[in-house]
């Protein structure tokens, strides 16, 4: 069964460093998403992406965040200058069509020291 994959599974970085989280959505899916979950808290929407551009973003998704689909398979989330509060699990998701079910990847646990 097709699934969303994410790399790395864990990443530790120093405050102020740039990180890139990678996702490979399900191959025939057209809509891509990033969510984050701070430890013990609820899952929060960050951004959705369709047709090579952002279609929706939350107030969390400020100028330090960016997303990109650099090729036909990868979907990346870049955090330019990480802060301690960026420590969280980051989930990528994809859906085949608009308003269809989103399938989530296993997550990348980011720790900012």
């Amino acid at each position: 069964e097709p699934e969303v994959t994410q790399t790395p599974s864990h990443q530790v970085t120093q405050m102020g460093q740039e990180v890139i989280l990678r996702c490979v959505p399900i191959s025939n899916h057209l809509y891509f998403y990033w969510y984050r979950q701070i430890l013990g808290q609820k899952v929060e929407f960050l951004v959705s992406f369709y047709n090579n551009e952002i279609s929706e973003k939350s107030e969390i998704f400020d100028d330090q965040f960016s997303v990109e689909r650099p090729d036909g398979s990868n979907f990346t989330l870049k955090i330019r200058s990480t802060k301690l509060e960026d420590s969280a699990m980051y989930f990528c998701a994809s859906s085949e069509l608009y308003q269809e079910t989103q399938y989530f990847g296993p997550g990348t646990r980011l720790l900012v020291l």
Partner: protein
Amino acid sequence: AQKVTQAQTEISVVEKEDVTLDCVYETRDTTYYLFWYKQPPSGELVFLIRRNSFDEQNEISGRYSWNFQKSTSSFNFTITASQVVDSAVYFCALSKGYNDMRFGAGTRLTVKP
């Protein structure tokens, strides 16, 4: 405003008991989607069900059943004859006309042997 409330923070039951997880939502949209996701201790988000606002028919899938009532804005989830493997955090989520998803705070279910 979109809001999902899962009032039960933690529930503990003994194996084979039935358990109901409550979800109450708020939205002004007439078209929306409701979801349940399971997050086991390993951390991934597992899709369980998606229901659109026009379909109030209850659904049963094995030991899982869902009760959607628009009149009370509720979308409750029942596990019949619970098992230890059901132990997880369960999230209810709401998606409006466009494609972000709002999650509730989650209910941590512990099933004891």
